[in-house]
């Protein structure tokens, strides 16, 4: 759909189990608040728009995974996803495949890369081939080219230099 990726900068806030805040600072301003069942999106000075998470399952899956991961809730993670881990303490990768059929129709898998106790990169593989990448922590300030290739992103997430 897009011929170059959309690159946004902002803050991601973990607000406790099932709650997440996402603020976009550039290239435009947007504040998203996600709770268990709904998301509200406010752009500029406009009135917030409300979405049911059932309408945006990829977000729901991401939220559950992210929330459980940050909350250290292995049981919830196990219930919602098929987990497979690889790598080392310094560079680990966790792959989450949704168990819920409805969610799986939208999301193939979520890959999380991290070092030690910090996740740094979330990649959401949507079923239609689109890829959403969320770089956090130390990676958040990475300077990206206007069109980073999947290989570059992969290298970035794994913490190796892509040449």
């Amino acid at each position, binding site marked *: *759909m*897009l011929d170059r990726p959309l690159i946004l900068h902002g803050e991601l806030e973990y607000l406790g189990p099932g709650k997440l805040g996402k603020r*976009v600072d550039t290239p435009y301003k*947007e504040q998203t608040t996600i709770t268990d*069942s*709904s998301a509200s*999106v406010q752009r500029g000075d406009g009135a917030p728009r409300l979405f049911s998470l059932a309408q*945006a399952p990829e977000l729901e899956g991401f939220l559950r995974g992210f929330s459980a991961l940050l909350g250290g809730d292995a049981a919830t993670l196990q219930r919602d996803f098929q987990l497979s881990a690889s790598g080392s303490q310094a560079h680990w990768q966790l792959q989450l495949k949704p168990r819920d059929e409805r969610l799986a129709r939208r999301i193939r898998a979520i890959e999380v890369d991290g070092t030690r106790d910090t996740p740094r990169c979330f990649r959401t593989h949507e079923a*239609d081939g689109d890829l959403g990448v969320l770089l956090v922590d130390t990676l958040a300030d990475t300077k990206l080219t206007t069109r980073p290739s999947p290989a570059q992103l992969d290298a970035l997430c794994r913490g190796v230099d892509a040449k």
Partner: protein
Amino acid sequence: MRTRRSVLIVLALWLLALVALATFAIQHLHISTDLRSFMPPPQTADQKLLMDQIGEGPGSRLLLLAIDGAPEPTLAELSHGLADALRQDARFEQIVNGVFDPAALDDQLLPYRYLLSPTLDTHALDASFLGEQLQQRVEDLASPAAALLKPLLARDPTLEVLALAERWSPPKAPATRDGVWFSSGGAALLLAETRGAGFDPAAQGAAIDALEAAFRRLPNADKASLTLSGPGYFTVLINAKTRGEADRIGAVSTIGFILLLLLAYRSVPSLLLAGLPVVSGGLAGIAALALGFGSAHGITLAFGFTLLGVAQEYPIRLLSHRRAGEDALTSVRALWPLLATAIASAAIAYLAFFASGVGGLQQLAVFTIAGLVVAGLSTRYLLPRVLPARFRDVAATPGLAAATRFIDRVPRPRWLPWLLLIVSLLALWRAPGPLWQNDLAALTPVPQDLLLRDAKLRGELGAPDVRYLLVLQAADADGVLALSEALTPPLDALVKQGSLDAVELPSRYLPSLATQRARQAKLPGRAVLATALADASRELPFRSDLFTPFLDDVEAARKLPPLDAAQFARSPFGARLGSMLVQRDDGWLGLATLSGVHDADALADFTATTQGQARLLDLKGASESLVVAYRERILRALGLALILLAVTVVVALRSLRRAWHVLAPMSLATLLVLVVERGSGISLSLFHLVALTLAAGLGLHYALFFERPVADAAEARRTLHATLVCVISALLVFGLQAWSSLPVLRAIGLTVALGVGFHFCLSILMARGRRSAGIDD
């Protein structure tokens, strides 16, 4: 002279005739349950529209559904499942549960979005508007809305489909959670529009059965409960309830009646034979309906058989008045003048029902008159020929002599009736509550709690106010749409000003042809649009060929013939519009529904400025005016019946003084029933009037027989015996009805039971009074 053989022949012929009548009736009578035939005939244009709306209008075909009792995600799944199942069902026109599915706009209809959506009225499809829109789409793609918008984007970058979805959703839609409507109480809400008319119980029954079966087949359906409401549901419910209740009351009163007769006459053959006149009357009534109308209302039959209870008096009189050693034919000849008077006057009373002009009541009149006449004639000519020769003279019934003596000795002060009259008039004057019940709903036996639930669901669903309707009038359907567009700004101003919460105009769904053409003229050519699009997306990351489907659709929309009401009404989204446009002989009507009307006067003032093109229809006002007009008719008819009745009695008795003794207790007793009912705050409905007439008919019997000069004390005892049997049986039948859960049966039962009591007591006091000293032994 009377041989066993001739008895058997008469009996066999009689039974054969009954079988023939029954066969004819079963083959030719169609039982209908259209409640409208029990409503008054419409006179004014508003009343006609009201009756149409009640029967066939969109409101009456709407079923309101609520699913609750389980966690919300389960309820949402059930709502989705039920809607999907019913969309496959031919019995349903449409089903709405809050989900907007853009896929339902098929390829043929999709390009029309540029003609249907108001976007082009305020914006042009130029580089600046497209640029602004595309920038928003970029932001949408990174937001939670992405999943929703992705499938639409290439074809519809300005999201006209969503603009239409918003426009087409009910003006006051319930909250949407998990993609479906939810009430404030946490129940999933749906609206189902049936194809069958609201008051067609067969179609509604089939639709409701299919709906409930579809619900039960859904996974997890056992964990939740489905609640239905709406006119169609009420029709089915009342149908089943009326039948069930009439059957139950009928069964119990039949058993009571049999026991009473066994006790009174101690003869099984007499009892069986005494039933034949009423059976004959009932079958004759049904046959008369089959001949005269071809169909009968279920309520007609239920009421008719009840009213025919009067006819049971005829064989009872014959059995009670037969003196020892007397042939049954001789006794019946002696009784006949009085019986004939009673039958003639009752038949005349029911003629008043016929004059009411209401289908159901006319059927009732035909049924009852035919039934009474046939029951009377068979009591006169057939029953005496088959009754057993051996019988017991009831004059010898133990206790009867004492009862007669007691009644004879009851003090009968001449001033008592006058005192009763004065007290009654005073009580009527001071009685609480309105005298008349004008609310049509009070006549429709829908239990109050169901009506309340309906009102609540209606409010939650934002389903329109059932009271007010804005009627637009124009020469054709497009004229209605154009008028609707012209009225939109002033009506929006009224909404803003707080006169009402929302208005749903037909042009909300389909703009007039002129508006569509105006929008069409604003669509740019393909080359111009492609350039504008390229300009707009220069800075944006969209693939260059992504919007080809958009260019195709706009190009297609430029060449489309505008969509007319008939075409649109056939589309998946057209059902709502189709039901808002009504073709009449003299043009087209548009029915705009209103929600939350706070200031009807402001609305009426506004419609007054439209030179009759729009008017506010107050359905409640129209229905009440209908009831008032109807009551005036029935009161006139009853007045006429009363005069005819009085004349019949005077002529039959050939004495004004004797007629006074019959008519005075009857009139006073009727007044007393009114006093008791009004005194306990009951407002009178048409059914009370009907029941008062029936009670008066019974009272006439008592007065006539008590007033009759008798030869000896034994005959006086027989009269008392017959009257007691009649009074007790009437109290049994109507007393049971007074406990009915159906307001109509209750109104009739209470009124008749009270009436029978008063008529009996006053007949003793006033009709019998003058001979208290004369013939006593």
